C-alpha cells in the first residue's frame, strides 16, 4: 500500500445499501457546510473586533499625537531691576511677589510698537500663556544675578494660539467669530516670519500636574497618584489574596462554609465597582476617618476590587500543581506547611503573579469607585506620599475630556495613549511570566 491506508472491508453484500451510511452521506455535506459557516462566523467576528480596535486606536493616536508637541515663542526678555526689585535688596520676599507678568508682557509689546489700544493690547497679551511669568519667577528666584540682564526665554503660547498653529482653530473671518481674532492671526504670522515661533516637544505634559490652562497641564501628578494608589493596592491585595487562596485550596476543610465563601468570592468578582466605592466611603472615610482624596484610601478600595481576581487566579494556579508533588513531599517527611510553602507555592507562583498583574491592570483603569472617595478632583500639587490628595490617570482623562477648552481634547487622547501603554506593558509582562516560568505537567 503506497499511502499506508488500508481500505475498509465492505462487510455488506454488494448492491445492498446500508441505510445508515446513506443517511450519513446525505447529511455529510450539510454538516461540513455548518462547520464552514461556524468558522466563517468566528473569523468575521474576529475581523470585526480587530477593525473596531484598530479604528479606536487610530482615532486616539491621531487626536492625541499633536499634544506631544507644543508651540512656543522665543522672546528676548529684559529683566530690569526697576520692575522686579526697585529697592535693590534682592530680598526673596520682594522677588517672589514681583509682577513678572508685566515683564513678559512688556517684552512682547516691545515687538509690536504699533499695538496701542487697550483692547488690542489685551488681545496681544492673551496670546501668551501665564506660564511664561511663572517660569521667569522661578528663574529669578533660583539665580537673582539674572536681574538687570536680557535673556532669551522660550515661552508657551496660550492654548488657543497653539490650537491655531496646529490648524485646529481657524481665525475669525467673514463675520464668524472664533477664539482667534483677525489681529492675533496677523501678529502670529509676524512672529512666525521673524522665526520666533518654535514647535517643540511638550515636556510639560510629562512633568506638570493638572492645570486649568491646557498648555500648562500635564499628567505627572496623575501618574504619581496612580503609582501610590497601585502601590497600596499591591501591598494589600497580593499577600491577602494569595494567603486566602492557599488556605482555601490547601488547608480549608471542604464543607458548607467554605463552599459559601467560594460562591461569595466568585460573586464579588462581578460586583459593579461603584459599590466598592460606596463601601470605601462608608467604612474607610466615615467610620475610620481616613482623609478624602488620598491614594491610601483609593488603594484600599481598589484592593477590594482586585482581591477576588487574584484569589480566583491563584487558586487555579494551585490546582494546576499535580498531587504527585504534594504526595512526594509528604512521603519524604515534610510537614503539610512545608509541602505547601516549599513545593506547591513556588510552582504556582507564576500563575499567581499573572493573576495579580491582570488584577492590577484592571485597578489601574478604574474611576467609578474613586468618585465616592473624592479622587475625582482638581489637584495641582504633586502628591509626595499615600496620604496626600491625589488623582489617578483615568480620572485625569475623564476630567480633561469633559472640559470646554478645545486643547484638552488632544491632551485627553495623549493621556489615553500613555495609559494604554502602561496597560499593554503590564499585560505583556503577565504573558511573559506565564510563558517563561509556568511549568507544564
Amino acid at each position, binding site marked *: 500500500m503506497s499511502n499506508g491506508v488500508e481500505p475498509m472491508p465492505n462487510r455488506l453484500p454488494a448492491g445492498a445499501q446500508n441505510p445508515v451510511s446513506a443517511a450519513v452521506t446525505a447529511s455529510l455535506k450539510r454538516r461540513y457546510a455548518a462547520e464552514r459557516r461556524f468558522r466563517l462566523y468566528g473569523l468575521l467576528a474576529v475581523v470585526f473586533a480587530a477593525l473596531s480596535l484598530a479604528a479606536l486606536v487610530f482615532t486616539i493616536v491621531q487626536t492625541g499625537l499633536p499634544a506631544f508637541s507644543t508651540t512656543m515663542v522665543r522672546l528676548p526678555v529684559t529683566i530690569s531691576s526697576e520692575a522686579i526689585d526697585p529697592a535693590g535688596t534682592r530680598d526673596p520676599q520682594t522677588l517672589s511677589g514681583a509682577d513678572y507678568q508685566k515683564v513678559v508682557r512688556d517684552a512682547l509689546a516691545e515687538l509690536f510698537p504699533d499695538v496701542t489700544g487697550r483692547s488690542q493690547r*489685551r488681545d496681544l497679551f*492673551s496670546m501668551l500663556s501665564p506660564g511664561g511669568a*511663572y517660569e521667569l519667577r522661578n528663574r529669578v528666584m533660583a539665580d537673582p544675578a539674572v536681574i538687570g540682564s536680557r535673556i532669551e526665554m522660550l515661552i508657551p503660547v496660550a492654548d488657543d494660539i497653539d490650537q491655531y498653529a496646529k490648524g485646529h*482653530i*481657524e481665525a475669525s473671518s467673514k463675520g*464668524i*467669530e*472664533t*477664539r482667534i481674532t483677525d489681529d492675533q492671526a496677523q501678529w502670529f504670522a509676524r512672529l512666525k516670519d521673524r522665526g520666533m515661533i518654535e514647535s517643540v516637544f511638550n515636556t510639560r505634559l510629562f512633568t506638570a500636574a493638572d*492645570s*486649568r*490652562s491646557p498648555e500648562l497641564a500635564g499628567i505627572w501628578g496623575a501618574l504619581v497618584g496612580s503609582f501610590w494608589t497601585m502601590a497600596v493596592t499591591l501591598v494589600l491585595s497580593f499577600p491577602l489574596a494569595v494567603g486566602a487562596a492557599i488556605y482555601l485550596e490547601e488547608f480549608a476543610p471542604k464543607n458548607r462554609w467554605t463552599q459559601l465563601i467560594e460562591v461569595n468570592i466568585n460573586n464579588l468578582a462581578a460586583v459593579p465597582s461603584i459599590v466598592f466605592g460606596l463601601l470605601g466611603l462608608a467604612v474607610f*472615610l*466615615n*467610620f*475610620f*476617618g*481616613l*482623609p*478624602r*482624596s488620598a491614594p491610601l484610601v483609593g488603594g484600599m478600595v481598589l484592593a477590594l476590587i482586585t482581591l477576588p481576581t487574584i484569589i480566583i487566579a491563584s487558586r487555579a494556579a494551585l490546582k494546576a500543581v499535580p498531587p504527585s508533588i504534594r504526595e512526594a513531599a509528604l512521603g519524604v517527611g515534610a510537614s503539610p506547611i512545608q509541602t505547601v510553602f516549599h513545593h506547591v507555592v513556588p510552582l504556582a507562583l507564576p500563575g499567581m503573579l499573572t493573576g495579580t498583574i491582570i488584577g492590577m491592570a484592571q485597578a489601574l483603569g478604574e474611576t467609578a469607585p474613586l*468618585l465616592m472617595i*473624592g479622587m*475625582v*478632583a*482638581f*489637584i*495641582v*500639587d504633586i502628591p509626595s506620599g499615600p*496620604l496626600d*490628595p491625589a488623582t489617578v490617570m483615568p480620572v485625569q482623562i475623564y*476630567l480633561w*475630556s*469633559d*472640559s*470646554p*477648552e*478645545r486643547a484638552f*481634547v488632544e491632551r485627553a487622547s495623549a493621556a489615553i495613549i500613555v495609559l494604554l501603554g502602561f496597560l499593554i506593558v503590564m499585560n505583556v509582562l503577565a504573558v511573559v511570566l506565564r510563558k517563561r516560568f509556568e511549568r507544564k505537567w
Partner: protein
Amino acid sequence: MIRQAMTVALLLSSLAVPGTAFARDQIRIVGSSTVYPFSTRVAEEFGRITKFKTPIIESTGTGGGFKLFCAGAGMDTPDLSNASRAIKKSEIETCAKAGVDAITEVKIGYDGIVLANSREAPQMNITLEQLYRALAKDLPDGKGGFQPNPNQKWSDVDPSLPDKRIEVLGPPPTSGTRDAFAELAMEGGCKKIGAIEELEKSEPDKFKAVCQGIREDGAYIEAGENDVLIVRKLEANSNAFGIFGYSFLEQNQDKIQGSKINGIADTYENISSGEYPISRSLFIYVKKAHVGVIPGLQEFLVEFTSDKASGPEGYLSDKGLIALPDAEREKYQKVAKEFPDNVSM
C-alpha cells in the same frame, strides 16, 4: 501572641477615631461640574499668587456636592459647595440636621444655556413656546386633555421653522443643566400656552409634570453628561441641535452657532443683561463654621468675587463665565468679606 493581638487592637483603635486625625491647611470644594472650570481657574491662580495651598476641587455635581457639604460641620467635610442652582429647602434642612446651620450664599455669575447647531446649517430663530411645543412630552389636544407630542418636524411646530426632523441632543435628568433647561426654557414656553396656564393654580404638581416633561420618543436624545461629546456630534450631524452651557459654545464658535431664542442671540452681553431668556445663576455656598479656621478660605472668596476674576474683563470671562451686573457684583464682594447668614434656615 498576646502582645501581637494588642498591637493589632491598638492599630485598629488608632484608625477608628472618626474625623479628628487629620488637620487641614487646604480648602476643600465640592459640587457642580458647570462651576468646576471657573472654580479650578481661580484655585490655580490663588495657589500661585498667595502663600496658601491650592484648594482641592471635586467635580461631584450640584446635588452630590450638597450631600457632602451637608454631612456635618466637622473639619473633615468640605468648606465650599459649588452649585449651578440655588440650594433647595430640603437640602437646607439636611444641612441643619447635621449641624451645618450657618451658610453664606455667594452668587458668582450667570451661565446661559444655549440651543446650538452646526455652522453648516442655517441659524434658527425660535420662541420659547415653539421650543416647548417641539420638545414637550405631552401637549394639550385642544379638548381639555393631553396627547403625546405629535410634532415630528420643526415645521410641524411652526411653518417658519426648518423642514427638518426634530433632533435635539441634551443632558440626562441627572444633570443640573437639564434641570435648569426644564425650568427656564420648557416651563417658560409652557406658560405661554393658555390651556396650561390655569393648571398652575389648580394643580401645581400636574403643571410641573406637563411643563417640565421632555419627550422620550427619540426626538430628544440624552447624550450623557459630557458636553464636549454633544459638540462633536453637532459637527458631524448638521441636522441636529444640542443643549449645553454657554462656555462650550464660546470655545467652539468656529464650528457651531447658537440659536436665537425669542429673537435674542446668546451673546455675552445679552446673557449678562438678562435679556436672553435661558440663563441661570451660579453660586458658591460657604460653611460659616469653617471661616477663620481653614486658612485662606476668606481670601479665596475675595479672589473669586474680585473684578480681576469674575468681572466683565476678568480671567473667568475668558472661560465663559458671565459677570454679574456691577451693583450685584459689589454686593457679593461685600458678602465674601462679611459672610452674612443669607440662607434662611
